[in-house]
């Protein structure tokens, strides 16, 4: 008994903070989304806000936009990341490449990534200036509008820049720790490099590819700063929409905001659940 309880007691300080902040915040959000917010005099429980939010055209457009950004940017990151990891594993100057290619973007914060994309791809950015200087375009506004656009190209590029090295890092670790007997056997039996890649390496790394996909998907779905800085005015990404609602000086609006947050949270939990399932699968493979 003593032994079993000891780790829990030692974890208690950390867990108190975690549950205190996380669970308390979540339960407050949930209560407020139901219309219970005594600090500003709202005391009635209702489901109306959910009904209102889930049928609201603006909300649905934002949701679709956020899902689109998260899905496209994560998919591109996965493809590029796997290729990158594979080429690093096969490269002769492993150490140097590793350091430069993925460590730097992983460290750089998302706000800085947004700023970089803004400075490079904006209509008054570096590329536009170069094109202008070379005479390719005669006016800055002729440069293709990659930022603040309705398809979220700028946002997707920023996320790809951040996501690719992350995927590469995860996949590279798995690839380099993998028992390469299997690949060698395959090669001995006459498989081409391409076949080894598709039939040996990819299936073995699939669980980690999936779980890292989920991580960056959940992140780019729920993050605020990149779509705020380089996203279009409409449709707004869901987190930007939630923030704008939260900042509405009319506090009777608050339950509406919290409903949006609950939807965001629900989708994030869904991601965690999928991640958990994949993790179990991964353990089955290893064990």
């Amino acid at each position, binding site marked *: *008994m003593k032994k*079993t*309880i000891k780790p*829990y007691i030692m974890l*208690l300080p950390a*867990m*108190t903070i975690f*549950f*205190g902040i996380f*669970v*308390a915040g979540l*339960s*407050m959000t949930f209560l407020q989304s139901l219309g219970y917010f*005594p*600090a*500003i005099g709202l005391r009635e429980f209702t489901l109306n806000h959910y009904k209102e939010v889930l049928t609201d055209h*603006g909300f649905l457009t934002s949701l679709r936009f956020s899902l689109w950004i998260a899905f496209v940017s994560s998919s591109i990151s996965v493809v590029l990341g796997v290729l990158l990891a594979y080429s690093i594993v096969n490269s002769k100057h492993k150490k140097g490449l590793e350091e430069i290619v993925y460590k730097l973007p992983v460290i750089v914060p998302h706000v800085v990534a947004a700023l970089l994309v803004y400075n490079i791809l904006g*209509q*008054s950015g570096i590329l536009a200036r170069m094109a202008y200087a070379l005479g390719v375009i005669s006016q*800055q*506004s002729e440069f293709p*509008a990659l930022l*603040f*656009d*309705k398809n979220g190209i700028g946002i997707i590029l920023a996320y790809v820049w951040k996501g690719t090295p992350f995927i590469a890092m995860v996949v590279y670790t798995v690839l380099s720790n993998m028992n390469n007997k299997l690949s060698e056997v395959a090669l001995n039996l006459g498989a081409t490099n391409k076949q080894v890649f598709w039939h040996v390496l990819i299936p073995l790394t699939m669980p980690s590819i999936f779980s890292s996909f989920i991580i960056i998907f959940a992140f780019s779905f729920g993050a605020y700063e990149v779509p*705020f*800085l380089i*996203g*279009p*005015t*409409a449709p707004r990404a869901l987190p930007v929409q939630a923030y*704008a609602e*939260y*900042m*509405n*000086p*009319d*506090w009777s*609006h608050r339950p509406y905001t919290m409903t949006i947050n609950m939807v965001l949270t629900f989708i994030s939990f869904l991601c965690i659940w999928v991640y958990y399932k994949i993790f179990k699968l991964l353990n089955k493979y290893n064990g």
Partner: protein
Amino acid sequence: MIKGKKTIMRKIILFLLIAGLIFNLAGCSQEAVVAGGNEDLLEKSWKSILEEAEGTEISFYGWGGSQMTNDWLDNFLVPRLKEEYNITLNRVPMDIDQVLNKLLGEKQMNVTGTADVIWINGENFSTARSNDLLYGPFTHKLPNFNQYIDAESVEVKYDFGFPVEGYEAPYGKAQFVLVYDEARVEQVPKGHEELMELVKNNPGKFTYPAPPDFTGSAFIRNIIYDIVGYEQFITMEADKEVIAKAIQPAMDYLKELKPYLWRNGETYPATIAQLDNMYADHEVFMSMNYNPNEAAARIKTGEFPRTTNTFVFEKGTIGNTHFLAIPDNAPNKAGALAVIDFILSVEAQASKYNPDNWGDLPVLDNTRLSDSERVIFDDIQIGEGALPQHILLDHRVPEMPANFVPIIEEIWMENIL
């Protein structure tokens, strides 16, 4: 067996944590307890308030998005307060809506806060007042307020149509101006019609920040005033349908303008900072500002071209007063009173008005100044590209009631986006 034990243990611990949490929440819902000494402070003499403030620290929370503003606080106010009252002022840059959310959170937890003085106005003040987040009324206690401020003037009595009732003291005045590049704009528009013509003749060269950006929102209200006048809004009820009907002509105007805006109006800059950058980069030929001296400051720093100038519409542009308030849970109210009183002195207001420092319009009543005090203000040279005070004051119209602002922003989103 061991596994079963673990699960039970886990459940017990989870239960304990949740139980703790519920106690926590129950604690929060208790009625607020008034911190001791609040009532007494306003009964005390000014002298003993100053004695109490001596040697303390105060935290000044306010918008920190302008270097000029921050510099004035750091380079003038901080050292002068130290000399005068031995008060240490900590400037905390934070947007007012975030400050309010912080105060609201603190109110829920029923704790003493960290902010002593907050820079506030408009719909944020009305939100703070209607949720009992502010301390007061306190302005009648301030010697400089009683001596130099016209307490009966509309701009001191009301903040965006909301009665001030002594819960905030005026800090400075601002007025909306349009910023343009003389080298690229041939004819300065006198009003909305000329602006439409100008933009149609130069597609893609004009835009405005999307609400809820403060300046973009003010631009929309200016257009509304220019088209349907401002008088009707003073008595109008804050009902979305009524407002929507009244401002329909302005929405039609903005809709007509939209295809000629930057990027065909498909997207708008999210902040005034972004629009200013686009103006500095020559992407657009006009910008706008709620601080009439900001453009002059940016010419000086070299961010804006030297050919930058400002103008107001013939029918006028919106002006407002910004204020200072004390949160109800402020830890150092005596210090806060001393600081606010000092900011209302001739010395501080004149230093703030000087465009070398900040360029914020003073709030003192000119008729209450002595001749020697008036000379101090008259001697200040306004910056290149800034409009003189009398032109601004002659073209100044009042702000809308605060609760109209979010409604108008909503209508804009539904109609224009």
